[in-house]
């Protein structure tokens, strides 16, 4: 069976500067979780401590599966207010 997905991936703030990417698209031929999106986009096997993750603008855990068309975001602890 051939699964084909396009995932929009976004990085914010200090993480965006460290990774050197603001937005990118990831194409995948198998089911993925958020941490796998991280690994395939950044080439890094582990997530930084305290990193936050969202799928379609809802906070999720690293093991959350993603679906075709999803927007996945990675960012450092928030500092608004």
């Amino acid at each position, binding site marked *: 069976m051939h699964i084909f997905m396009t995932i929009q991936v976004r990085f*914010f*703030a200090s993480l965006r500067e460290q990774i050197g990417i603001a937005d990118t698209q990831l194409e995948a031929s198998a089911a993925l979780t958020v941490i796998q999106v991280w690994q395939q986009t950044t080439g890094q096997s582990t997530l930084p401590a305290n990193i936050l993750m969202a799928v379609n*603008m809802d906070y999720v855990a690293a093991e959350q599966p993603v679906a075709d068309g999803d927007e996945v*975001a990675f960012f450092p602890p928030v*500092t*608004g*207010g």
Partner: protein
Amino acid sequence: MMHIKILDQAFEPYAQLQGYQASLSAEARGFGATSVFVGTMRDFNQGVQVQRMVLEHYPGMTEKELSRIASEAEQKWEILDGLILHRVGEITPPDSIVLVAIWSRHRLDAFEACRYIMEALKSRAPFWKKEALDTGERWLDKNTAGYK
């Protein structure tokens, strides 16, 4: 019913409150208690002088997360109306950064809902501050806790 707005221009918090309160619905005019919090940019933070800062946010998720926080507050307390304003972009001291205001019949609801929203905003709403110092720039790494 709460109004949430992300602003890329300076705002005067008390003029905003006066204007917003004048526009409240007939039902919301039954308020007896208003609790307001205003966060202001200081020119001094963590021991050093700060010239200005850039407030980055995640457009879309910011509004979504703030709406979720507002709904949680509305489930926990009796709220007639609320206003949440937050600046983004380049900011200089002493600009206002954030305003949260809650109108309720009774003060317990107003006090607790206002504080709840501020704490949740500080820990969950996707905003990030990058300060410009004399010696360069720095990202703030985390917000301090607001409850003891």
